């Protein structure tokens, strides 16, 4: 547990999910239950990705297969919808029987903007779990003013959850 965390009660957990990343909805739900914190499942449909997929020559190189294949916007959107529905369902199964208050949202924006918007809703202090993050990993702690757009982008690419304390 991060230093100083004992002194604060986490009001909200913002669990970010991204297209193609399975995430860990069950683990996130357990964490929320343990912390008795409100949980927001935030599925971020990255606009950059959607824009790219809409290009007429959009193609990707598979990772790590290194196989080149075309990308189709409709297919990508369908995949995102299915994934979001699956995540919502997994959270519902885990949390409906509990007293944890939770919600799930799909945001079509850049990841930074989506998280920023969620943080702006209040509920401080909040724990951000990045799309590829490990809910149980050692947490970083930041104060709200230290959270620049650049810093938030970097945090969302990392594995560690970040505890955002108010000013």
């Amino acid at each position, binding site marked *: 547990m991060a230093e100083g965390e004992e002194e604060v009660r986490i009001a909200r957990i913002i669990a970010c999910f991204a297209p193609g990343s399975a995430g860990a909805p069950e683990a996130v739900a357990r964490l929320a239950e343990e912390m008795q914190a409100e949980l927001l499942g935030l599925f971020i449909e990255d606009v950059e990705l959607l*824009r*790219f997929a809409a*290009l*007429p020559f*959009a193609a*990707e*190189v598979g*990772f790590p297969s290194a196989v080149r294949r075309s990308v189709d916007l409709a297919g990508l959107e369908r995949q995102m919808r299915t994934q979001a529905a699956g995540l919502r369902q997994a959270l519902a199964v885990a949390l409906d029987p509990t007293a944890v208050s939770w919600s799930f949202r799909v945001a079509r924006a850049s990841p930074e903007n989506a998280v920023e918007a969620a943080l702006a809703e209040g509920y401080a202090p909040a724990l951000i779990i990045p799309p590829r993050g490990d809910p149980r990993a050692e947490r970083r702690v930041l104060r709200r003013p230290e959270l620049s757009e650049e810093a938030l982008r970097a945090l969302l690419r990392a594995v560690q959850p970040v505890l955002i304390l108010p000013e």
Partner: protein
Amino acid sequence: MNLPLSAEALRRRCDPAQFDFATTAELADLEAALGQQRALGAIEFGVGMRREGYNLFAMGPEGIGRRTVVRRHLEAQAKTLPAPSDWCYVFNFRTPHKPRALQLPSGKAPAFRASMERLVEDLRAAVPAAFETDEYRNRRQQIEAEFGERQERVLQDFGERARAQRIALIRTPTGFGFGPMSGDEVMEPEVFRKLPAAERERLEALVAALQKELEGVLHDLPKWRRESMQKLRELNREVTRAAVNSTLEEVRAEYRTLPQVQDYLAEVQEDMLENAEAFRQAKEGEPATLFGIPLAHGDASEATLRRYAVNVLIEHAGAAGAPIVFEDNPGHDALLGRIEHLSQMGALVTDFTLIKAGALHRANGGYLVLDAVKLLGQPFAWDALKRALRSREIRTQSLGQALSLISTVSLEPEPIPLEVKVVLVGQRLLYYLLHAYDPEFAALFKVAVDFEEDMPRGRENDLLYARVIGAFARKESLRPLERAAVARVIEQGARDAGDAGKLSVSMQALADLLREADYWAAKAGRAVIAAHDVQRATDAQVERLDRIRQRLLENVLRGSHLIDTAGRRSGQVNGLAMAQLGGFAFGMPQRITARVRLGSGGVVDIERESELGGPIHSKGVLILSGYLSGRYAPARPLSLSASLVFEQNYGGVEGDSASSAELYALLSSLAEAPVRQSLAVTGSVNQHGDVQAIGGVNEKIEGFFDLCKARGLAGGQGVLIPRANVQHLMLRDDVVAAVAQGKFAIHAVSTVDEGIELLTGVPAEEIHARVEARLSEFAERARAYATGVGGKPWQKAKKK
């Protein structure tokens, strides 16, 4: 004139006065095998002869103590030999389906198994501990971070190079894509479409080139991952090696003098380094079981660790001397061991820990005693034993494998060298059959241990017998026997031997008699066993078994079965037959009749014609035909047709002991000399008219005696026996008493002439003369028929 035998000749008494003890309690124990010098010599030779093929076959009838004698000798010899090695099966790391056999000094195997169990337990703690150190964690993170950073760096560099060309690197759900930029963002598709065609083509070409380049970069990623994994494996091995080496060192030191174990431990060490992960997985509770049987391989790590187990197949901890194994159920698997299976999810699985020892494993380095009949009765067990003895190794495999009936993957345990002396115990017939029909038998069982069924009677042997009786009574906690009781037991021994001059050495019969005599003594409230108790025991034995004899006797007494014991009749003789049912032998008289007439058919054996006569009986009848021809018609054809029959015999007849009776019936019929029905006859006859010995003489005499006694002993009744059988007489006391009182008589005859005189009261010469005259008359009439003179008397009568 033939005089009847005296009463003294009918039963050779054992005089209690010859013993100078009051009861057997005074006698020293004697555990020697009575009368078995030949067998003892053979055992001593066979046991001492440590060469291939010198296995033993102890043959003789049941109950004479073959196993006891063999056991006693083997125990004495086994004590002088060292306890053999222990054997274990362990996992074969090179060829897993061929478990490896490890030889350890006697009694060491359990300790080795415990050492290996301890080793695994220690490593379960030591290996995870080694992986939880800061040193290991930091080095591992370093390796993982190195790979992640290298990957990220390459992608970042690539992204920057693309961005420099105004192309954005986009992370898609399943890879990476490239899109032209507009400002700091990916270009809107509408914007892209409005670009001049040349610009669009340029951007597309640029993106295609970058995609190709990225493919090349990503191609290297798996290689980097492998490198990273390799580093991680090296680290794991390094950490594991330190833990394993320090723990294994103790075990190595403990078994430093055993190169085979050292080799095995070296392989264990190597395997543990390869499979360190198994030690890192926590052991959760007890293994899963089904009806108390552990479900093997339930968990991958448990299955891996099971490979380091030691299956102690055979161990001799605390054993003094070589093992002696008596296998009572010598089936194929019971001899060679078996590979058991566990049912797991509907499939049968096995491994080296499920190999179980057989009798050959247990007896290896010592002796294995088997019952030959049981062995031969078990499918493929005999072949398996021979194969093991020939190859001198124990190859454990299921019958299905041995016969190639199953082809599923199973274990092929490494064969274990075999050094064993096998003793087969069986009947003589079996020995001779095996010798005749199994070519390998003679090479593998070179030592025949032939047990005697009896021993000579005499003062010295009587005393030895008394000591054996005394020793047995003591061993079995029976009452001591008075010397008169001992004498009575000895007489019964002679009766069992069927010979007044011999003693049966059937220990089973002796043991039964002593136990039962003790029972009757107890019932009578006696502290010692008296002669009366022995007699009561023998009488009770007979009484329990003689229901059929009584029913047969009853049939005769009620006239259903016709047997005369008084009067005279031509062509009719009382023969004597013996039956043996359920171990009880008894004799019964049997009416034999003969009818003669003119003809050329010789003697017709009705028993044979009706397929009720056995081959030996037929032979007897043919012999008496030979006697007739040789005696009365050496130079002319025998113009006789005679028929012989065992009256009211519906169950078959075998043996030639009635051939003299049949001959007497024929002679009586031919000579028209009536035979005394108060006499019965037994004895076979040869072509010269000599009467020969037969078996069961005592039972046969007693059979006729019982009938006569039931009808009332009139004084003239008796039995004709072959003189050669006098030495076998051990008749019941009541028969002897009747003879002593002149109420019954036993006549010993050597020739047919003696017998016919006794039976008819007519001198033999006269009988012969009458027979010759009758046969001449037959011959004359036959010739007349043949030449036509009187040949067709009815035609002559017509002419007249």
